[in-house]
């Protein structure tokens, strides 16, 4: 078991007029080496769910358990970058883990190479990068910490087809090396191709879960459409 949710609920702005129930009674389990895709339409609670995985939010009720170290790629990479240069940003995590400067720099360069960002970007201010480059820099910052559970919020959004494919290939490689992956995506085809387990959220409830074959079967068509999603086109894996 890498991640387990037992009857987890979450409410934003509790006790104010803006109170909003974002998740109700979510239970699931991700094994070590699992590849979980979370699908659901806008506002269904996906980001809330993965913030709970990473302990950025505390459940209102229920219990979240996590085995190992988790790393989170935020939905909006702007929210994730804060250091004055790319290389410092990527080194931030390893330094927090107690590595010395040289080790951290080495790890950071490896991670940046891994996501395909070259040395010419190391000393740039991360906010001057393009949207896609920001995302990759943020991903490098997460990978540099060598998490055993990697959580990604719509990692392919804003990437061109090639970068998106190479990102998925990278995730696949990490997964084969034993990293548990939990990924939010809007692209059903990506989920169908990569996921070992799929979770479908609808208005904060977990309406479907299981393997791609089970979840995306014709008998679930109405549930999936009610959740505001479409079944992936048959045979159209990317």
């Amino acid at each position, binding site marked *: 078991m890498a991640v387990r949710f037992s009857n987890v609920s979450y409410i934003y702005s509790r006790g104010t*007029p803006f109170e909003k129930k974002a998740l109700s009674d979510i239970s699931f389990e991700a094994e070590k080496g699992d590849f979980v895709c979370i699908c659901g339409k806008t506002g269904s609670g996906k980001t809330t769910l993965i*913030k709970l995985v*990473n*302990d*950025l939010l505390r459940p209102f009720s229920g219990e979240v358990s996590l085995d190992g170290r988790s*790393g*989170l790629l*935020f939905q909006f990479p702007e*929210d*994730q*970058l*804060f*250091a*004055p240069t790319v290389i410092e940003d990527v080194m*931030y*995590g390893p330094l*927090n*883990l107690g590595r010395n400067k040289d080790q951290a720099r080495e790890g950071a360069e490896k991670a940046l190479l891994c996501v395909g960002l070259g040395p010419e970007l190391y000393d740039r201010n991360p*906010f001057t990068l393009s949207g896609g480059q920001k995302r990759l820099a943020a991903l490098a*910052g*997460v990978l540099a*910490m060598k998490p055993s559970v990697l959580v990604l919020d719509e990692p392919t959004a804003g990437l061109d087809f090639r970068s998106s494919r190479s990102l998925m290939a990278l995730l696949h490689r990490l997964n084969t090396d034993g990293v548990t992956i939990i990924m939010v995506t809007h692209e059903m085809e990506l989920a169908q191709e990569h996921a070992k387990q799929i979770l479908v959220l609808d208005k904060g409830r977990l309406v479907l879960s299981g393997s791609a074959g089970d979840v995306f079967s014709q008998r679930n068509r109405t549930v999936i459409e009610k959740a505001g999603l479409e079944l992936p086109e048959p045979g159209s894996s990317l």
Partner: protein
Amino acid sequence: MRDVTFGRYYPSRGPLHETSASLKLLFFALYIVSIFISKTYTGLAVCTAFLLICIFISRVPLGRVLRSFRSIIIIALVSSVIVYLTHPQDGALAAVVLFVRLISAVCVSALLTLTTTPSEIADGLEKSLSFLRFIHVPVRDIALSVSITLHFVPVLQEEAEKIYCAQKARGASFSGSLSHKASTVVAVLVPLFSSAFRRAGELADSMESRCYDYACERTAFHESRFTSYDVLAGLLFAAYFLFTICVRLMPWQ
């Protein structure tokens, strides 16, 4: 950081929400005057009672208002103790006076921002200070800056929260010794400042791209007019204010 109430509007339709903003600003200023002219237990009791009544009729939960002085209560307590210890006579009264003044000043400003939206405040400021335009004070620009500042309190709060999350997600720890906590606050503040400047630049661009011109006469989308509500509120407040002055001037005190 999450619990900053100052500058947060609390939507409701209570009588204080309906009162015109320029009037509320005037009340605010006069209320501060009234707590500074009250130097006796009676006077302070009147001020406090009035504040409590205002909070009660505003329909803002008491807790929301009280939360605003959580951070200042230590300062108020410490300074009251110092006053108590250093005053040659009547130390207790001086300490209570200071304490009540500080707390009610904070509460009344919280009440103002809780019941008035930032744009209403800016509008009210512009109206009530417009006489200063005759001596070439750029009242409108000041009002706009105030309104933007108030708008950005919750935005920056959110931003700080995001940076906090981003750092926490990468292994920063926010608990531990006091000096460690202080250094983590700096680590959040530095990116917060750079992001505030970035946002300010973006905002200026977006205002200019929509032809904001600081030199021209502006009209309001929501014209604010005095209503019978305002007249009633004004009368009640005037009564209160005169009463505090009477209490101050009472010969037997």
